[in-house]
């Protein structure tokens, strides 16, 4: 399942980069995040609770920054398992930052997600729309948090 989009924020690229590298602040934008634990500079574990259709469960994951080219680009690899069907999900999220005029930044993301196991049956029927909306909501929260961060400085 491939998902892509852009988030335009009214902050300079350097500020945006610092924000996405701060795992605590970055992960606080994830809808449904119940717990996050930083393992090291590049790795964090998390648990997301979600009810998708008739299925209600927890999704435990580990995310690792596998490529890092400050302040322009990063690739985050995520692997996890859901608590109901024990299906495995893995995927790479590529994030590219482009500085725009007027101290603004465009953050372009591209995610390629692979689901193995029974959860894949729901595939494009339910999960695609859910993932799209989760990314949309994540983008909205990220933009709000980033811009509030800058204003408060």
């Amino acid at each position, binding site marked *: 399942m491939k998902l892509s989009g852009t988030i335009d924020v009214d902050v300079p690229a350097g500020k945006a980069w610092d924000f996405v590298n701060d795992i605590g602040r970055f992960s606080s934008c994830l*809808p449904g995040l119940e717990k996050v634990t930083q393992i090291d500079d590049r790795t964090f574990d998390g648990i997301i609770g979600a009810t998708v*259709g008739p*299925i209600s469960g927890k999704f435990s994951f580990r995310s690792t920054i596998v490529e890092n080219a400050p302040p322009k680009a990063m690739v985050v690899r995520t692997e996890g398992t859901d608590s109901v069907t024990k299906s495995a999900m893995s995927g790479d999220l590529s994030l590219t930052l482009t500085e725009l005029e007027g101290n603004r930044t465009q953050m372009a993301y591209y995610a390629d997600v692979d689901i193995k196991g029974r959860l894949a049956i729901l595939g*494009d029927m*339910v999960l695609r*729309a859910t993932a799209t*909306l989760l990314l949309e909501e994540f983008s909205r929260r990220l933009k709000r948090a980033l811009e509030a961060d800058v204003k408060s400085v």
Partner: protein
Amino acid sequence: MADWFDKTSASSVEPLTTLRELEGHYDVIIVGGGSAGCVAATRLSENPARKVLLLEAGPDPQPIPELVAEAANQVRLLLESPYVAMYPTERNSDDSVFYSLAGRIMGGGSSVNVMSVVRPTKFDLDTWVAHGNPDWSYERVLPVMKRIESDQDYPDDPFHGRDGPLYVKRPFTFGMASSAAVQAFIERSLAMGLPLCPDLNVANPLGVCASPYNIKDGKRQSTVVAYLNGARGRSNLTIIDQAQVVSIEFNGTKAEGVRCEKDGKMRTAKGRQIVLCAGVYHTPQILMLSGVGPEEELKRLGIPVVHALAGVGENYQDHPVVYMTFEGTKSFREEWVVPRFRLLIKTNPIGDCANFHIIMRPPTEVEGIKRMIPVSAHLLEQRSRGRLFLKSADPRELPGVDPQMLEDPGDIKAMVSAMEFIAELAEGKPVKEYYGPLIQPRPAEDWAKFARSTYDSYHHGVGTCKMGPASDRMAVVDERLRVHGMENLRIADASVMPTVTHANTNLTCIAIGERLADFIKEAA
């Protein structure tokens, strides 16, 4: 010959007679206890003089586990049980993957499906006749449909049966109270010109149709429940589960038995007649592993050719499903499993027959994001043809599926028209109260591209051993289900359907099992 056969030949092969319950030869060996196989085994063993062996690759749990038996568990059954085989299937447009599914438990698809009981349309059966199968006309098949069912809503209707083994009931009828959301959806559909169709199982259904299900008192009426359980005590019926048939034994072109893997050992069973009921994926697999199939394909895999039959694995068809997801404006919860009604519409159809199921889906709620409310479009025909192919000569490796769905311009045109119909439906009063803006696909998106890259399967794969006359080089069985060019070998499952029905396919599979039994009885 491929490695796998080398490893399992001679020394590790034991005759089935080492298993006490399998001693002796059988009059009929049925390979696969699915929707058709259970029916055929039950009907054929009605004659105590006929010795029948039923082999099923999956388990035959007794009593039936609650996850299977309780209709309300249907989604959990798919997601949590070990009884569903998943076949990774690549969409042709971008190689993205969805999963074709099949039941791997006694009862096959009827033990894991959504329990719809929908007849093939008259147009479907007319089409089968046009493919050279006059014995499958609507008039010839109707009595079989009637004898299968015990229709609770139309027991006295001349087109329905009242005493058959399969319990059929529509959980929702139009006089019944329903939620405001359902009422709004139906009202809007009628305003768009669709007629009310209280019985989906008429010859040519169209409009807002009440959906029939094989659910009795909340319990799934699989072919195990409706048929096989009533025959289990017969001394002339032997049922063996977890026995995967890997090939047919031939003497020249005469089928004489089957080789199967049971408890980790290869065994053989002998029979005067062999019937493959292993389904649209495994019936052609077993044939090809046995040396019956497209000659070049068999040679490529190192399988000795017993009988070249070009159509084995070809002619694959299924129903593609595309979801239109709107922002839900209100929370409501209809029954998750059973859509109580569906719309049958006609948009760019092949023939004079409704070619879409449009199904209202309940909202999906995920904390922290907008509520989603999908409507699904199910195309009930396929102009292009896919195929089923072996990846290797190892019977344990699942065969590959090349779907070719939504590849024909006529099919994609039909799908986009259906999506436009859904968008128009959701925009009108009073249904608009429940449906907000379209989330997916976006209105400005290329809907044809979206459909081709996100469609899923309605899980109605058919056609990989097409029924037709010998003059049709792609036909695998004749209209009495005998494999062309072979003796004592028949096929009875979804694979024989020349074209996919404009309906859920389980009931047609049951009818094929019934007719197989008729044909064998008549030939005796």
